[in-house]
């Protein structure tokens, strides 16, 4: 049996990462390295207004005073920030007017990724902003959405067309001083998505951003800003992939969400950046700051993430529950296989009265993967009758991986009720044999059990994504029972 398992593991780890191809696209890149001139160059390339350049420069000045955070349970190799290209754009007209203006090679790339840029091909009614390297390639359904007053476009377009909105909210949830990676992003961010849902509008389709790293030696620093006005609703999806390369690539994104009175935002991520090979060579460093503020009363922000890719993940999608009766949710499945490391979790800041938060975290470790949940539930004095429920489960496959839980609870209000549950489990041989005896082979049995374990979270994903995520879990883990 031992040999059989080794064999299965070997087979699986030799599975190719499905999205590891590289597209031969003519790319406009700037020289490696980071300094004020580079920031001015990025800003100039994007023809940005003066205030935005100032924002970048302030952030850069701040960043120079900061140092890499080392509190996470991660082993991060030294990163040479002067060895990274901070801007790479497929050579084409920025913000193409029609699909015909999009480079066919680019279209082919996104087709291959299962993200058709052709609106005709969308049966499910999902609007997509496709971002490659530093720029947005194409946003679909912009016009359809505009009829409802919904703004959904690339960040660069938003800066040009809706400067007041961008200026009002940029950095309002994640200030440029926030943390090392967010500050770096504030200085050099390239593109990303912008979304505004007006008062009382329920967005009729899933909005989605698809991030693709293509160019080598390039960092990806996208910025997403999502504003949901009073009584609006939006469900937002985010997916990402990258080619297989031997060197690590840095991805430091920032996502900010603002939910006004009675607004509801559901933000789902299926993160599938290249995880590196089975010896831990290559892969994306995924150092991301995501935060939403429930600014208005009775508002709700719900984060769902399925983290399967990246060599190292450092990510804590959080909610600031400022409005009274506001709700924050965090549902997470994080997988680490081979040499992957993840330190992920959330922060729930309870400020308003009767604020409620739910945290469901499911960590899965296989191979030599290290998986940590890190979460903070903070109940401020003002948060009368705040409630939190946290559940952190870890599933271990094999005996060379690790699972760690770092829950922090800080309460300044005695009316708060905070619950925390944690479990650690393994897939037992008895479970596998039980499945085998019913005619289900070990590979499929592991898939069934892992998907069952993650079901609570997967159920929170929009339909099309849930199926995709289920498959991804299976691929990421096939046969890693040890």
């Amino acid at each position, binding site marked *: *049996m031992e040999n059989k398992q080794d064999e299965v593991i070997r087979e699986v780890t030799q599975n190719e990462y499905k999205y590891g191809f590289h597209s031969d696209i003519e790319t406009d890149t700037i020289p490696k390295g980071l300094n004020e001139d580079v920031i001015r160059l990025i800003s100039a390339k994007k023809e940005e207004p003066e205030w935005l350049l100032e924002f970048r420069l302030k952030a850069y000045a701040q960043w120079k005073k900061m140092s890499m955070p080392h509190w996470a349970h991660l082993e991060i190799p030294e990163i040479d920030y002067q060895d990274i290209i901070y801007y790479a754009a497929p050579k084409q007209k920025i913000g193409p007017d029609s699909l015909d203006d999009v480079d066919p090679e680019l279209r082919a790339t996104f087709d291959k990724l299962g993200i058709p840029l052709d609106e005709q091909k969308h049966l499910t009614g999902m609007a997509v902003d496709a971002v490659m390297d530093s720029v947005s390639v194409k946003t679909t359904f912009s016009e359809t959405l505009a009829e409802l007053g919904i703004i959904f476009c690339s960040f660069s377009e938003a800066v040009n067309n809706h400067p007041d909105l961008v200026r009002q909210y940029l950095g309002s949830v994640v200030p440029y001083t926030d943390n090392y990676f967010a500050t770096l992003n504030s200085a050099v961010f390239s593109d990303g998505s912008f979304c505004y849902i007006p008062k009382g509008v329920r967005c009729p389709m899933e909005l989605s951003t698809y991030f693709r790293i293509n160019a080598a030696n390039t960092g990806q620093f996208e910025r997403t800003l999502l504003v949901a006005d009073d009584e609006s609703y939006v469900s937002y999806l985010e997916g990402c992939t990258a080619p297989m390369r031997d060197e690590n690539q840095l991805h430091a994104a920032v996502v900010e969400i603002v939910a006004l009175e009675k607004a509801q935002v559901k933000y789902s991520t299926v993160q599938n950046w290249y995880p590196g090979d089975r010896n831990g060579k290559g892969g994306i460093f995924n150092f991301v700051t995501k935060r939403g503020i429930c600014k208005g009363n009775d508002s709700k922000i719900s984060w769902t993430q399925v983290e399967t890719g990246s060599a190292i993940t450092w990510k804590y999608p959080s909610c600031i529950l400022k409005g009274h009766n506001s709700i924050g949710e965090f549902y997470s499945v994080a997988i680490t296989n081979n040499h992957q490391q993840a330190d992920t979790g959330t922060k729930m800041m309870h400020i308003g009265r009767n604020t409620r938060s739910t945290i469901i975290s499911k960590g899965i470790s296989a191979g030599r993967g290290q998986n940590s949940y890190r979460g903070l539930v903070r109940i401020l004095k003002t948060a009368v009758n705040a409630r939190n429920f946290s559940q952190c489960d870890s599933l271990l496959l094999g005996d060379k991986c690790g699972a760690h839980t770092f829950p922090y609870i800080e309460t300044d209000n005695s009316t708060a009720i905070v619950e925390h549950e944690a479990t650690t489990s393994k897939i*037992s041989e008895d479970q596998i*044999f*039980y*499945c085998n005896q*019913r*005619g289900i*082979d070990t590979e*499929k049995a592991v898939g069934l059990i892992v998907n069952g374990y993650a079901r609570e979270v997967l159920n929170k994903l929009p339909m099309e994504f849930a199926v995709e995520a289920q498959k991804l879990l299976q691929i990421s883990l096939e046969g890693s029972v040890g």
Partner: protein
Amino acid sequence: MLSIKDLRVAIGGKEILFGINLEVKAGEVHAIMGPNGSGKSTLALALAGRDLIDVIHGSVKYMGENLLEMDPEERAKKGIFLGFQYPVEIPGVSMVNFMKTAVNEQRIYQGKEPLSAGDFLKYMREKKELVEFDSQLTNRSVNEGFSGGEKKKNEIFQMALLEPKLAILDETDSGLDIDALKIVAKGVNAMKNKDKATIVITHYQRLLDYIVPDQVHVLFQGRIVKSSGRELALELEEKGYDWIKAEANGHTP
């Protein structure tokens, strides 16, 4: 259907079965009885292919093929079903999803089209009635939070869905009240036909009031020490195992 010849097995280097011989023909029901620790469950698990159990000698032919060379899932797909003495819980995996996967794996193996979700649910409803399985239980995760009796009934329900050729029921009756016992027996009897065989492992004669065996075997200290018709079960019920033990050890009672 099943032909076991001089089967010797060990667990972790310790020999548990010392040469089992057993012939089971299609259409027959065999009961294997015996005191605790005599190797009954080990025999069941060896037939199902549990890797903890090392076969050190002997042969097992199933439908003319060498059973011992097959993976457990292959044995299952070829129609061997084990009703577990202690069914495990699989949290999060719904009964529907689990059994749909199992049934379809078998269908694919037999070269049939897998059942669609709708067809499977219909099929499941039929079988549920057959074994009087509580409809609520199929909405839950596999065995999770099931009572002891529910777990055992669930084994019979799974057996009904998979329609095995050879069912091995390992103490499916233990821990059941008389009503549950009748349901289990009814399920087994409902599936009985000339092409199928059942091996019932049990401590108690009472199950055999409802499932009538063609043969009763007594397993003691890793050997079948007595085989006879169903009257043997009644004798055991009356006199216990002591006389068997004494006989096996070469003493007269």
